[in-house]
């Protein structure tokens, strides 16, 4: 296979051929169905759906005798909002997202993103994808779009599972924000949806990072392991106080800022910083992935 595939970028080339658009959507649909039909993806989503069930049942069992959740007292240990779960099932959505965001969600995204290009190369299918007149840039964008779709679906799976478990095991109703004011259940549901979207957006950076790693190697397993390893390493570095000067630029640094949506009024500063940081990671690693993928030799 020759290097430097023509890879005409459609929107920079003067001759944009109409069939291209159909190709993009066809490619995207194809990618989406391939990804979401994989047993691996379904297993990941199954694990994510099981986390809220575990948390919900554990809280339910622990508080059967009326003792407060989270060990009472200081409420230390245990994910955020866990103390409120027994009184309002909606809080299980927030607790489940807080519990899955540091590890389960980025791990699942790392697996899907790391597999995106390297997995095809591993299976020897990448060259066939490139035979189609879609171009490398377009293929890469499609892969990234699919990964982002997975981020959203994975987050929604956690949220919906948590809402279902919360509704089954605990009462629902008006809730108290962490600022102490009361909001209606409908308002709370709206905030829960907004929080799920913010959590999904928090994974944009990991997805771009995984995609870049995926273009570096022809081994799908290596790409997944590297991405997940990076996620864990950066989170550990983010805990080291001596690194305070660079910590605000680590992609997981503002992840838990989604909880600021439960303040009244909402505290936007860290939320916006988080979204800006994710956009920056997407731009840097997305373009790095593009630089690598459009110029590398495709041998498999």
């Amino acid at each position, binding site marked *: 296979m*020759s290097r430097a595939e023509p890879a005409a970028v459609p929107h920079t080339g003067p001759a944009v051929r109409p069939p291209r658009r159909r190709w993009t959507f066809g490619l995207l649909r194809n990618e989406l169905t391939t990804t979401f039909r994989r047993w691996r993806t379904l297993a990941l989503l199954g694990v994510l759906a099981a986390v809220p069930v575990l948390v919900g049942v554990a809280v339910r069992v622990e508080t059967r005798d009326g003792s407060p959740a989270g060990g009472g007292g200081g409420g230390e240990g245990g994910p955020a909002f866990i103390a409120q779960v027994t009184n*309002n099932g909606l809080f299980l959505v927030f607790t489940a997202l807080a519990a899955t965001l540091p590890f389960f969600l980025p791990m699942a995204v790392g697996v899907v993103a790391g597999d995106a290009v390297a997995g095809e190369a591993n299976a020897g299918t990448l060259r066939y994808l490139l035979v189609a007149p879609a171009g490398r840039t377009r293929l890469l964008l499609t892969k990234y779009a699919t990964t982002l779709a997975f981020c959203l679906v994975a987050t929604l799976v956690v949220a919906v599972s948590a809402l279902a478990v919360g509704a089954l095991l605990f009462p629902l109703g008006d809730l108290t924000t962490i600022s102490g004011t009361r909001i209606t259940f409908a308002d709370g549901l709206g905030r829960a949806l907004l929080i799920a979207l913010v959590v999904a957006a928090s994974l944009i950076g990991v997805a771009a990072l995984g995609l870049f790693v995926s273009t570096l190697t022809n081994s799908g397993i290596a790409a997944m392991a590297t991405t997940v390893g990076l996620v864990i390493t950066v989170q550990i570095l983010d805990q080291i106080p001596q690194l305070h000067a660079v910590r605000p630029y680590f992609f997981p640094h503002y992840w838990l800022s989604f909880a600021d949506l439960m*303040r009244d009024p909402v*505290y936007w500063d860290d939320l916006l910083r988080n979204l800006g940081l994710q956009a920056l990671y997407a731009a840097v690693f997305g373009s790095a992935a593009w630089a690598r993928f459009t*110029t590398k030799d495709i041998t498999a």
Partner: protein
Amino acid sequence: MAPYESDDSTTAAEAGERDAGRRGIARYGVPVAVMGVAAATIGLVPALADSGDPDLPKISAQQLLEKMAQSDVQQLSGTVRISTDLGLPDLGGLENSLASGALASGAPDGHGSSADPSAKLTELATGTHTLRVAADGPDRQKLSLLENAAEYSLIHNGTDVWGYDSKANEVYHATAPANARQKDRKDGKDRGGDEPPVTPRQLTDQALKSVDDTTSVTVDGTAQVAGRDAYKLLIKPRQSGTTTVGSISVDVDARTWLPLKFTLTPASGGAAVVDVGFTRISYAKPAASTFDFTPPKGAKVTEDHAHADGSAGAREQKSEQDLAKGFDGLKVLGEGWNSVAAFDTGSRDGASASGGGDLGGLLGSFGDRVRGGFGSGTVFSTRLVNALVTDDGKVYVGAVTKKALMEAADRGR
């Protein structure tokens, strides 16, 4: 970015290989450029956004102080950032647990609710914190300490004082007579009564109380704080060389005359010891729902009866009396910024025993052993306050240098 090669580049293998290599390197320029732009934006935007100090009519320090005294801001909401750097050893969680443990055991009724305001607000003594404040007249105030995925709110609404710790889902409740605050204010007492001073205004009120002939007060230009034009009021001790206070700078809103930022710089230079300022402020009336609080279902509610019994300060007074019983009276030596508080703990065997056993040893390891006309003792230093505990049980505390503290102790004998 390199120009786009078309399909023919693949036919000429040699040239194509070189082109591809060059193009590969050129394309990596894109992520590097993105990073560069981001770094430049992060570095430059704050500098560019700083549009310089606002142009305001000249005003004398006297006029400014008068305006501040007349200032009657009843309604506001905003975000306050507090940084405290006393130079204490960073004990992290240990410090908090020690402080709250001491408070819990020292409280008259011995309860240990995590929603107790005095325990919670001690956390403000170290590090950087973000607070939200809202006020609507003397009867409705709210103060929230923003934590990771949690918040501690202190809400005063009419006769109720609520503390809500969302992390532990615990509630603290006390009742205060409706007009206690207004009476407090009329008597010229501290705003906020039983709460430690945390807003720039409360801190400024405290600082201005000590303004006398040992202090120089000047207007030192203008500044912009939280998007508002402000005068800078500079309070400086005249007795330089002995006090550890370098200067206090207060940024006063040029329209509402409300202090927006309070900075205390130590004489030794370096970072401010206390830096409290609004990062966002609005003088609009806060939504009424801000001050409404009903304990969430299932929350553990702790009623503070010491508060309910009498005036808002009853508990404080009681604990102060308890404290005072332990000492042979409190004397103030010196005047102005050089004041040193002296008291006798009554314990004869000195610093090592004052904390009792291991704790005393631990404290001793933080201090310096000194001797002088007062005998010998241990000096504990922070960047602002120095304390001398003599071996015969006397304690001298002041915002003065170690040397001045020892001289005061000599004189105080």
